[in-house]
């Protein structure tokens, strides 16, 4: 709120920067005025760079391809211990990550069997990001996934069969066949806004969810995701800026996964880290290792708690690599192989498994094997449900365009907003106008 902001400006400090600026006013140190720092919890800082290179084949024909430079042999860092997660919670997140991956393996098989309508999108390599971020939300918080955040849906209580039926365009899918992939939502129980294929539009929408809740007297966290590709859209700017000026509890998870379809991040933006964007919005940001579930969860939880305290939006940049093509048809041949090798060693599930079994010894080898088989059994049962659902009837294409005939009762979700007492009745106005 503009009005509240002037009353409590200190609360709204950006990365501590604005506060720093104000504090500096009495004793000017011009060199320090615009020195911003961004917290970075990573235990390694990969320095890989992708650029276009031209190579001649033996016939002298030129071919343009991507090549990668940097320290490709860096050793894999350890998992950073979480500030918040206990043993059981770590194991629960690990289970969700396993569910996420095994569900996608099942989807790949369903595709190969010709049971999927359209393509399949994978979150391979990004499971820590999806699962550990959504895990930080409380029940009343809201979220909206992007196409690769199929793990977030599992954490928020959707079943693997929901997503599978979406891909197979089945009658029992959450959209009853009307849309596929993770394009569905639930405003009643799981507080999820359905994504659309156009990128960035969810950011102002989730901000509006937080605005609606605040008018009803609740500060909630609203989490959504954007990629290094999607953040190039104009509506991304509009949405973050809106959340910033309105001080809304947006938790924006920027998944820097190196590739936007086939375009490397070097051709998507010029700044060093997308977390730097937050400085321009006047909001805090943090960089995390997107293959480390503990770092992801801690940053998300900090941001969620800020949102609950009414302190405004946070941008979290998680770095990792998309380990498959854009969708199942895309072999990602444009990705330099050494890059795949580098990130394969940083597989989020293998790293977390090693942490739980070998470092922390929170799971014995037997318990781990049992957990993996249990997840496989769940996915197989979910696959059965999905496969056995019928296709929708042609007639079901009709109807439902409008909310009519009492299909929904609309009322404020968190309680009736408090309203200002009347201080004057309606008076006609005769003020000057823009065009007569």
């Amino acid at each position, binding site marked *: 709120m503009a009005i509240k902001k002037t009353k409590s400006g200190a609360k709204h400090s950006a990365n501590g920067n604005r506060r720093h600026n104000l504090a500096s006013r009495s004793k000017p140190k011009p060199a320090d005025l615009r020195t911003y720092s961004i917290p970075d919890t990573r235990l390694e800082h990969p320095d890989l760079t992708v650029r276009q290179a031209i190579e001649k084949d033996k016939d002298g024909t030129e071919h343009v391809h991507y090549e990668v430079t940097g320290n490709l042999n860096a050793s894999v860092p350890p998992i950073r211990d979480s500030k918040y997660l206990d043993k059981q919670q770590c194991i629960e997140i690990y289970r969700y990550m396993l569910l996420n991956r095994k569900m996608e393996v099942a989807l790949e098989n369903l595709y190969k069997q010709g049971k999927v309508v359209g393509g399949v999108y994978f979150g391979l390599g990004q499971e820590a990001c999806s699962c550990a971020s959504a895990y930080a939300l409380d029940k009343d918080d809201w979220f909206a996934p992007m196409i690769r955040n199929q793990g977030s849906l599992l954490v928020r209580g959707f079943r693997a069969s929901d997503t599978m039926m979406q891909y197979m365009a089945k009658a029992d899918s959450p959209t009853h066949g009307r849309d596929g992939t993770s394009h569905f939502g639930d405003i009643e129980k799981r507080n999820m806004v359905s994504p659309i294929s156009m990128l960035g539009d969810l950011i102002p929408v989730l901000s*509006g969810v937080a605005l609606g809740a605040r008018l009803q007297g609740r500060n909630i966290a609203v989490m959504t995701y954007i990629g290094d590709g999607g953040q190039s859209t104009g509506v991304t700017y*509009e949405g973050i800026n809106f959340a910033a000026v309105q001080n809304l509890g947006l938790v924006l998870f920027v998944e820097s996964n190196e590739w936007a379809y086939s375009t490397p991040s070097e051709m998507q933006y010029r700044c060093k880290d997308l977390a730097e964007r937050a400085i321009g919005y006047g909001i805090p940001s943090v960089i995390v290792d997107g293959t480390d579930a503990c770092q992801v969860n801690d940053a998300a939880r900090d941001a969620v708690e800020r949102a609950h305290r009414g302190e405004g939006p946070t941008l979290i940049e998680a770095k990792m690599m998309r380990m498959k093509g854009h969708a199942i048809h895309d072999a990602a041949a444009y990705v330099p192989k050494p890059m795949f090798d580098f990130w394969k060693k940083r597989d989020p599930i293998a790293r977390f498994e090693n942490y739980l079994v070998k470092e922390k010894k929170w799971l014995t080898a037997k318990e781990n094997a049992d957990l993996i088989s249990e997840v496989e059994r769940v996915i197989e049962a979910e696959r059965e449900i999905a496969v056995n659902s019928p296709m929708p009837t042609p007639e079901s294409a009709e109807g439902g365009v409008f909310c009519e005939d009492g299909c929904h009762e609309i009322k*404020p979700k968190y309680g009736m907003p408090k309203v*200002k007492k009347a201080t004057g009745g309606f008076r006609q106005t005769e003020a000057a106008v823009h065009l007569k």
Partner: protein
Amino acid sequence: MQLTYLEAIRQGIWEEMDRDPSVFCLGEDIGIYGGAFKVTDGFIDRFGPERVIDTPIAESAIVGAAFGASLTGMRPVAEFQFMDFIGCAFNQISNMVAKTHYLWGAPAPLVLRGPSGGYVHGGPFHSQNPEMWFVHNPGLKVICPATPYDAKGLIKAAIRDNNPCIFFEHKYLYRRIKGEVPAEDYVVPIGKANIVREGSDLSIITYAAMVHTALEAAEVLKKDGIDPEILDLRTVSPLDRDAIARTVRKTNKVIILHEHSRTGGLAGEIAAIINEEAFDDLDGPIVRIAGLDSAIPFSPPQEERYLPKVGDVVREARRLEAY
């Protein structure tokens, strides 16, 4: 009570905010300034800055935020300073808001409103009638009132509706048209046309500012012994197919009059409806009177050439009557 078209809209929103705490307004310069056309003048004092929100100049964010708030059960009323700028939020409206109930069953009770229309020399970016961009988007209700009574009754109906409504206020009518508006609460149903002049010789199907153009033309035609019926659509999506068919069956001759460009305009759709519903009742060709197929130009002589006029309606009515 006699109210201007603008005051009727202003009073309608005011009363709904008074009646229902879930209604709130957002838009550019709508707070202390009261909006470029003063539709929300005094609202921030009465309802407070929480419910009358000045936003950044960011139309996609305005629509997105309104939609998000509507998902929590609020009823946002978002103002576009000029409806020309609604194009900046087109994706949010077309792909997010309009499809939401059909695809995943979430109602979106929001109103997007603002001034549209020409005759005020606003130029190509402040005079457009972009309603057709949304008529071709299933899932949206598109409302274009012509009178203070309808403007107030329809803005209240739009705010109470459980669907996204786009409410086009004709800026030429804002302070030029006054009319009787009852003091007590009422709504005008969305999707229902209204016969504003009974007649027997031909039908003029139109809406918004063109209703007044048609009424003026009718006064001229009366002297020629031509008695036109005028149907004010009031809502352009969904269209009142029955009312269109009824008037054609009665008069057997039709002029469709609208301000926006001819090609791909509403007249084409209405002609197709007549073809489907009342083909055998036609005693003459369906006549279209519309804006030129160009941007709407700035200079008054050019704008006058672009826009339909009383003389155009009189000329076309005489030609059609002679059939």
